[in-house]
């Protein structure tokens, strides 16, 4: 392995960016490809596919054997609101393999007693996000019902192109939210990416059932990541 490739791939991983080490197994030469970098020919198609699936493997491309080692940042779930749903969502998300963090400035809600072992930020999203910004491998679920807390985080999530953005609330609540976000300068296309009402439609009623619906919707979004953009790209 080229020492420069090792440094590059580690830097990409530390920065939570998707990257791939491509090794030509016939001569041992390697290089780092970042998601979105142009790669020509059969190899380019194989690289794009591997980024989408997140699966590493050997491919035969342009008459040579290559090993593609994909490094995707681990998916992270940030929940805005230390509410009853979040109490069920936190352990479920962890079991499913997602790192979870909870942000809620209301200190009566965001207590370690209610959320044992969960990274909790009892502060405004405006403050927390300065230190820990969202990225494309972050899912954001806003469940406080309070525009003062949710709106900023939702706009930040759309701006950061988070792979999932969901917001709790009825259709009526959401219609008002759409107006406020447009007032904040968010485009209609971006706002359309918000999942609201939140969660897959499984008839969830209890907070724990809503948590299941939200987690299932997040998993759907993560596993189909890149597919919609690609389809749109072809159509354009």
């Amino acid at each position, binding site marked *: *392995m*080229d*020492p420069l490739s*090792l*440094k590059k*791939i*580690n830097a990409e*991983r*530390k*920065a*939570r960016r998707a990257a791939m080490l491509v*090794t030509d*197994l016939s001569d*041992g030469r390697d290089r780092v490809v970042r998601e979105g970098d142009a790669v020509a020919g059969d190899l380019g198609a194989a690289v794009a596919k591997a980024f989408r699936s997140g*699966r*590493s*493997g*050997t491919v035969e491309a342009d008459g040579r054997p290559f*090993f593609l*080692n*994909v490094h995707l*940042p*681990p998916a992270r779930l940030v929940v805005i609101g230390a509410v009853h749903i979040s109490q069920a969502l936190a352990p479920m998300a962890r079991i499913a393999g997602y*790192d979870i963090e909870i942000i809620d400035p209301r200190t009566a809600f965001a207590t370690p007693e209610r959320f044992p072992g969960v990274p909790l930020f009892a502060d405004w999203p405006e403050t927390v996000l300065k*230190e*820990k*910004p969202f*990225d494309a491998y972050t899912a954001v679920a806003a469940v406080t019902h309070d525009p003062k807390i949710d709106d900023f985080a939702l706009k930040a999530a759309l701006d950061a192109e988070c792979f999932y953005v969901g917001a709790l609330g009825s259709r009526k609540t959401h219609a008002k939210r759409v107006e406020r976000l447009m007032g904040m300068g968010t485009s209609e296309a971006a706002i359309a990416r918000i999942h609201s009402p939140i969660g897959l439609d499984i008839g969830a009623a209890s907070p724990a059932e809503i948590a299941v619906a939200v987690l299932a919707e997040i998993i759907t979004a993560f596993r189909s990541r890149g597919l919609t953009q690609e389809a749109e790209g072809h159509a354009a």
Partner: protein
Amino acid sequence: MSDPTLDETRDPLLIAEGWMNEGRDVAIATVVETWGSAPRPVGSHLVIDAEGNFHGSVSGGCVEGAVVAEAVDIIGTGKPRMLEFGVADETAWQVGLSCGGRIRVYVERLG
């Protein structure tokens, strides 16, 4: 922002970079293919230095010893090698995978 889930003390590629910065000779072994039940997924790494110190894994501990021995040799020659491991009695290798799977491991020198 840095990813809090990357553990500098356990991540093989971060350890390899650290060793390199200390001036140590390093080999990197990577699982490039698996068949049947294999203990570690494709892409997993074992990193080895010239003294045979290692971090990470390419199996559940079944073939690491053999990979480390090969790696020390590869650090000397600089020529990458593809190793293949299957169940113990069906292969020319001294060691095998008790799980019954088969793996191919690419071993190369860093630099």
